[in-house]
């Protein structure tokens, strides 16, 4: 079970950990970011070579288009727009995870085990929530949507109802062998998109950085769950590292701003939050 690929995966995962560690200290941060980038480049090449798909032109074309777009976007953005840029990029990553899950479900649902079906549906849902939630966060920070928390009537009830339906759909599609799986998967994706919107519009502009950090953790988690579906240990490991370190960073940021995550997600404003909780 432990072959060359698994060993390379462990080495690259450790590199990612080292990169994140270095990024948390001012002196070594630049270096840490570059180590992370190197590890990812190596991971892409290893995965292409290991799966024998390094000579597929379509993949290189996609990498080229994405790479050029990403580079231009990153160079053009002004420093003051950085938080919304990070939110936007994070959303794209979540969207990519959701699309991978969708492709896997469309192509292989019939042959999938219970584990594959469950993780595929989960990755679809978490990825879609990350996508729409991050886009709303970016739009709020960019003042395209009001920075004030938008709270609908019965907001909590609606969110929970949507979440419950998503969970039921995931369970149904995993346990039963459904013939119209494509349709179910698309419904799940749309509900998850709606949930992401409901989740993010409720948060005030000042609290958005913390929400983005949480969504960043989600996108790592979505990647890791995708890794379960396609049975890739490297994707599982790196996704889990990002998911967990994103979560701890969210906690650190909450502490620094003297806010509780529950207050932020329920859309309570800054002053009322401080009155309620002293953390």
């Amino acid at each position, binding site marked *: 079970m432990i072959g060359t690929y698994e060993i390379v995966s462990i080495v690259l995962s450790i590199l990612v*950990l080292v990169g*994140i560690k270095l990024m*948390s200290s*001012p002196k070594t*941060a*630049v270096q*840490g*970011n*570059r180590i992370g980038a190197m590890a*990812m480049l190596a*991971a892409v090449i290893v995965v292409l070579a290991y799966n024998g*798909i390094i000579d*597929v032109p*379509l993949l290189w074309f*996609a990498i080229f288009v*994405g790479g050029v*777009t*990403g*580079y231009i976007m*990153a*160079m053009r*953005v002004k420093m003051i727009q*950085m938080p919304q840029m*990070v939110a936007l*990029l994070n959303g*794209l*990553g979540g969207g*990519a995870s959701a699309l*991978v899950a969708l*492709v*896997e479900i*469309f*192509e292989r649902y019939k042959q999938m*085990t219970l*584990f594959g079906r469950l993780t595929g549906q989960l990755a679809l849902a978490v990825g879609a929530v990350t996508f729409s939630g991050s886009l709303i966060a970016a739009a709020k920070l960019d003042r395209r949507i009001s920075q004030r928390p938008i709270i609908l009537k019965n907001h909590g009830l609606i969110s929970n109802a949507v979440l419950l339906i998503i969970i039921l759909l995931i369970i149904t599609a995993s346990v039963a062998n459904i013939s119209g799986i494509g349709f179910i998967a698309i419904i799940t994706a749309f509900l998850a998109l709606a949930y992401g919107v409901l989740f993010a519009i409720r948060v005030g502009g000042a609290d958005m*950085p913390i929400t*983005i*950090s949480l969504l*960043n953790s989600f*996108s*790592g988690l979505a*990647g890791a769950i*995708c*890794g*379960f*579906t396609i049975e890739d*240990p*490297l*994707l*599982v*490991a*790196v*996704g*889990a590292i990002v*998911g*967990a*370190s*994103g979560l701890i*960073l969210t906690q*650190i940021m909450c502490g620094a701003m003297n806010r509780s995550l529950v207050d932020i997600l329920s859309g309570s404003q800054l002053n009322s939050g401080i009155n309620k909780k002293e953390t």
Partner: protein
Amino acid sequence: MKEMFLIIIFIVASLLGYRVIKEVPSLLHTPLMSGTNAISGVTILGSLVSTAYAVSSGSKFLGFIAVVLATVNLVGGFVVTDRMLKMFKS
């Protein structure tokens, strides 16, 4: 068996990821978030594999979009983080 192996990897990696950062100066919160966000573009590994093996052209198209989005996340994320960090130095 393979599934058990993957779950163990997930748990171990989560624990390591949870312990890797302890104290971060607030100046570095955004760059660190941005850097880990870039790494979350790791989902490109999944998109490459599923696009390459997809049979129907619809799936291939969705997979293509997934690779593009993940690459934007990766490249954009690292470049943005690098720019932010350079600003602190000067």
